[in-house]
């Protein structure tokens, strides 16, 4: 094996790491108490943005892309013939510190292919985190991936050094995971996840009593699953993620639209483009659950397996429940104002604060940043309302989607429209 330079290996390993979606550096306000380098900022900081529009906050890298597993959805699977490389513990530490000192990054996101055994891999990852904290006096953000199957002791130590831990679920249901990754199983994924959850909760309790107790993964835990590689419905995915938020206390569930990385594998669907719109709609539903106080069951009803690609899930909810609207901006409670399409969390809070001083009218609302083009059908304010009584959901949907072809009609992105190039066969009479 010829030796590769650091730059070549960095290229190979960042190429291999790019499929990890998470890059958040939020949730931790670790102090630079040791007068070393780095601190955490609770809101997170994005330092750059790549051409795909995703943020670069953390130095996201695989320790190695050698892997003993052969998962069908993964670019780094054992049977793929691609360039392999490994960075040593020292190299990763040096790169992280070097980048951090120039303010390129907010910290390190370390993941890895599995070499030899999960324990062997995890141990070296923990070493990186320990070295950063103990030897380099580094107090920036560290996100460590827990390798499924690694021993609880290593996961525990990892959590003590890291700000956030994550275990990737990869495929939303176990039978499909078995199908695509026969060497993996759900218990091996859920046992570190549960361990991390318990330790985070225990450490939070401990901090309440002893202020200086060591924190375990203060920025919480996240996970990621691939969308579109297997035939799960949106309803299944949303119910699963809402379950994970409740039972595992996750901070985030990330969705990754399936990219056809191994198109020769017949177990995977043939896609020409990643399902970006579907991914976007799932994230919007995720937001509805986390910030808009929606329940998973409200976003998709029993008879509705998939999200509507034409309209966002909040507008979809409003259209299905037209009897709840229009909402009176000057009297309704916060929960209901949040449900008006075109009103965001910030605008809703501002409405609540501002209406104590005076009655708000539509001019106020549009100045506050509410998208009146949409919202006007769903609210009344201190003036005559847009008539909403004779709208049927279909008519209103058509009006709203047609009014914003370029922005909202995203379904064209993934699917050719049937009558897009329709031309009448007969010539017109006149």
């Amino acid at each position, binding site marked *: 094996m010829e030796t590769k330079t*650091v*730059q070549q290996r*960095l*290229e190979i390993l*960042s*190429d291999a*790491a*790019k*499929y990890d979606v998470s890059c958040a550096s939020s949730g931790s306000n670790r*102090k*630079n108490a040791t*007068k*070393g*380098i*780095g*601190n955490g*900022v609770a809101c997170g*900081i*994005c*330092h*750059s*943005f*790549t*051409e*795909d*529009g*995703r*943020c*670069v906050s953390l*130095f*996201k890298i695989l320790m190695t892309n050698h892997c003993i597993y052969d998962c069908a959805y993964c670019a780094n699977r054992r049977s793929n013939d691609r360039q392999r490389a490994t960075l040593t513990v020292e190299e990763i530490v040096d*790169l992280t510190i*070097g*980048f951090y*000192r*120039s*303010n*390129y990054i907010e910290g390190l996101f370390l993941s890895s292919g599995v070499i030899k055994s999960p324990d062997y891999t995890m141990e070296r990852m923990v070493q990186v985190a320990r070295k950063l904290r103990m030897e380099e*006096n580094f107090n920036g953000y560290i996100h460590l991936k827990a390798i499924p199957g690694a021993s609880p002791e290593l996961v525990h130590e990892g959590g003590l050094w890291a700000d956030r831990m994550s275990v990737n679920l990869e495929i939303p249901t176990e039978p499909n995971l078995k199908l695509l990754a026969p060497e993996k199983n759900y218990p091996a994924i859920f046992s570190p996840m549960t361990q991390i959850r318990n330790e985070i909760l225990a450490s939070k309790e401990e901090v309440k009593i002893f202020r200086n107790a060591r924190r375990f993964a203060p920025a919480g835990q996240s996970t990621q699953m691939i969308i579109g590689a297997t035939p799960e419905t949106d309803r299944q995915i949303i119910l699963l993620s809402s379950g994970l938020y409740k039972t595992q206390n996750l901070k985030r569930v990330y969705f990754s*639209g399936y*990219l056809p990385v191994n198109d020769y594998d017949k177990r995977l669907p043939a896609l020409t*483009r*990643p399902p*970006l719109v579907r991914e976007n709609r799932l994230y919007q539903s995720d937001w509805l659950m986390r910030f808009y106080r929606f329940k998973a069951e409200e976003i998709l009803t029993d008879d509705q397996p998939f999200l509507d690609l034409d309209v966002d899930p909040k507008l979809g909810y409003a259209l299905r429940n037209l009897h709840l609207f229009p909402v009176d901006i000057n009297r309704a409670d916060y929960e209901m104002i949040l449900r008006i399409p075109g009103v965001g969390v910030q605008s809703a809070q*501002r409405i609540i*604060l*501002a209406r*104590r*001083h*005076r009655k*708000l009218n539509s001019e*106020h609302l549009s*100045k*506050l940043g509410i998208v009146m083009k949409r919202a006007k059908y769903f609210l009344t304010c201190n003036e005559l309302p847009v008539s909403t009584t004779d709208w049927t959901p279909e008519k209103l949907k058509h009006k709203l989607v047609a009014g914003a072809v370029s922005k909202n009609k995203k379904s064209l992105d993934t699917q050719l429209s049937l009558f897009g190039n329709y031309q009448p066969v007969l010539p017109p009479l006149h």
Partner: protein
Amino acid sequence: MTIITYDGTFGGFLTAVFESYNRKIFPVDICSRMGEQKHLFAQKTDIQTDEAKAERVWRGIQQKMTEKNKQFVFYAFLSEEQGIEMKIYRFLRRLFSGNLDIETDFGDPDVLYLTQTSRKVKQEAMRMLQFVRFQHTKDGLYFCGIEPRYDVIPLVVSQFQKRFADQRWLLYDLKRNYGMLYDKNKPQEVVISNKEFSSITGQVNDNVLQEGEEFYQKLWKSYFTHINIQERKNLKLQRQHLPRRFWKFLPEMMILN
């Protein structure tokens, strides 16, 4: 018809507010002495900055504002927008005359404008935390030259001080021609006359760069190109988050320039 002129500093502005109460005048405009003359026939009153008076007004503001908005007026002032003084002045008049927490009265055009402007300033400060790129120079100093839209360097110094406590750094505002230097002890304001860096892009001349600096820049650039997923290309989204005016300061964007 009275207009008040002051020296353009925040302290000066607060003194002007104090004097308007003291002399019982309600000015039609408050503007900087250095600014252009807008009013031909108005009576001008010039106010000398008095720290004690400014301090009194500032304390008054602190008492009336809620915890979250203590710096609100200051941030809005930093925006240097045309006519911001009168908007703040009217806001303060209302603030001092009643007990209601009028900072949340977004139905009022002044309050809404000030809220939005102070948010813009805070956002610009955030962008400093995001897009400052230090270059390591031969004498061990980490240097960054950048052009923020508003004068926000003083707002972010404490953040950088916490973060890079063990390295010497200099944040230089190329537009306003001053910088903040931190020597592992405390930050201080400096003006550089003999520049060894480009006053347009803030790039340090090659001969004063530290040995390893170019290597790290190269690694960073190649990292940046390889972490991108080509199939998901979305330049509009990129530009939305990473405004063009910062590109010339970012090593990773220089490949594209």
